[in-house]
């Protein structure tokens, strides 16, 4: 018997990502479909490292224009004024509005950058075959996966602000070019988190460590 932790992959078993059924490839076959839900079975998400890196790098590239370009343009009788995400946070800051200002700061600036850094860290450590801090790394992955959607907050704020404030010629608000890049960052980081296979965190350990379950 192997002393390593018994994983499905080591036992040559496919665990269906869709329905959870455990199954064994038919004799002489390397791959097959899930007999229960018809999903094509794989041991790990295909090209997980490459796909996650691709989405992540694209997100990091979009992150720059997302923060430099204005997301909203306000036109009043006095002229037009454009605000970036950070300027929007500053504008919201007031004796009563500061909690919301903090929410936007977290959701729009800290979460996207933290997500990119966290996923890069998970990718690098998994690719280097790290076997330490697995519990922390899987918790980090779950946090990234759970919290990512909340970055969309600013997209909705700007959408409804622009839709409502249409009081020409008094005042009108229009979306700016930064909004597109910001939405792209949110979508790309969500796709990156989806393409990452958390089992890759444990694969190096499964090969070496003695079972302790």
């Amino acid at each position, binding site marked *: 018997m192997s002393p390593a*932790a*018994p*994983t*499905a*992959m080591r036992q040559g*078993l496919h*665990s269906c*990502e869709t*329905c*959870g*059924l*455990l*199954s*064994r*490839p*038919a004799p002489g*076959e390397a*791959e*097959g479909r899930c*007999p*229960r839900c*018809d*999903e094509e079975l794989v041991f790990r998400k295909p090209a997980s490292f490459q796909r996650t890196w691709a989405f992540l790098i694209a997100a990091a590239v979009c992150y720059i224009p997302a923060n430099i370009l204005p997301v909203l343009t306000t036109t009043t009788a006095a002229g037009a004024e454009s605000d970036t995400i950070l300027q929007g946070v500053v504008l*919201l800051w007031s004796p009563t*509005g500061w909690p*919301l200002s903090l*929410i936007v700061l977290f959701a729009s600036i800290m979460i996207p950058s933290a997500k990119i850094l966290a996923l890069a860290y998970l990718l690098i450590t998994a690719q280097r075959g790290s076997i330490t801090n*697995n519990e922390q790394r*899987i918790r980090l*992955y*779950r946090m990234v996966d759970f919290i990512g*959607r*909340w970055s*969309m*907050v*600013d*997209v*909705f704020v700007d*959408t*409804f*602000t*622009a*839709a*409502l*404030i*249409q009081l020409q010629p*008094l*005042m009108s608000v*229009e*979306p700016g070019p930064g909004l*597109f890049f910001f*939405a792209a960052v949110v*979508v790309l980081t*969500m796709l990156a988190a*989806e393409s990452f296979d*958390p*089992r890759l965190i*444990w*694969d190096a350990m499964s090969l070496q460590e003695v079972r302790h*379950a």
Partner: protein
Amino acid sequence: MSSHVYNQPFADSMVVACPHCDLLQRLPELAPGASARCPRCNKELWRHREDSLNRTLALTLGAAVLYVVANSVPMLGLTIVGRQASTTVIGGAEHLWNEGSQAVAALVLLTAVIAPALQIGFMLAIVLGALRERPPKWVGTLLRHHPTTRTWSMIEVMMLGVLVALIKIADYATVVPGIALFVLWALVFLLAGMQTSFDSREVWERIQWAQAGARPGSAGDRVTEETS
């Protein structure tokens, strides 16, 4: 590479691999309400929901009604020096589209309107199909795609965004909350309840298999056996 050869199911349907760390383990028999976690990575593997299908059906029907109402009445309005404006969820996306931000408008429409509709519609069909003695294959097809609709359905995020927008706008104008605003808040809770009351493992255990005849007579049959 696509393959049309089916795998052979593992004999014991209670043996699973953790989706987050691949550790093989045997699920314990769980009392309704109890849950099992992976001993290695602490991922929740299964939570046995009590009276899952009936409760999910009730919550899904409620969510469907609220969804229709929420999308047919105004959500936010404002008045400023005698002028009025109001918008629905779809109206917000429509405005972005007309202003040239088509991609962002499509994303808003997807996450606030289309994905929630699919999330509710799929769930309704899944539960109705699963209430049959032997859930047909199409239940599995819907169940397969349901997590995607859930990922992109972001009503709760939208509501936080609306709250921020509301407070921003309150600086310039009097904000008039529309009926949809309250309905959407209720919908957030119903959707959360719908997801937590649903036990996908229970449905998968009873479903008609993709490969005809491969389905082992397993513990999953116990639910239906008593009806015949």
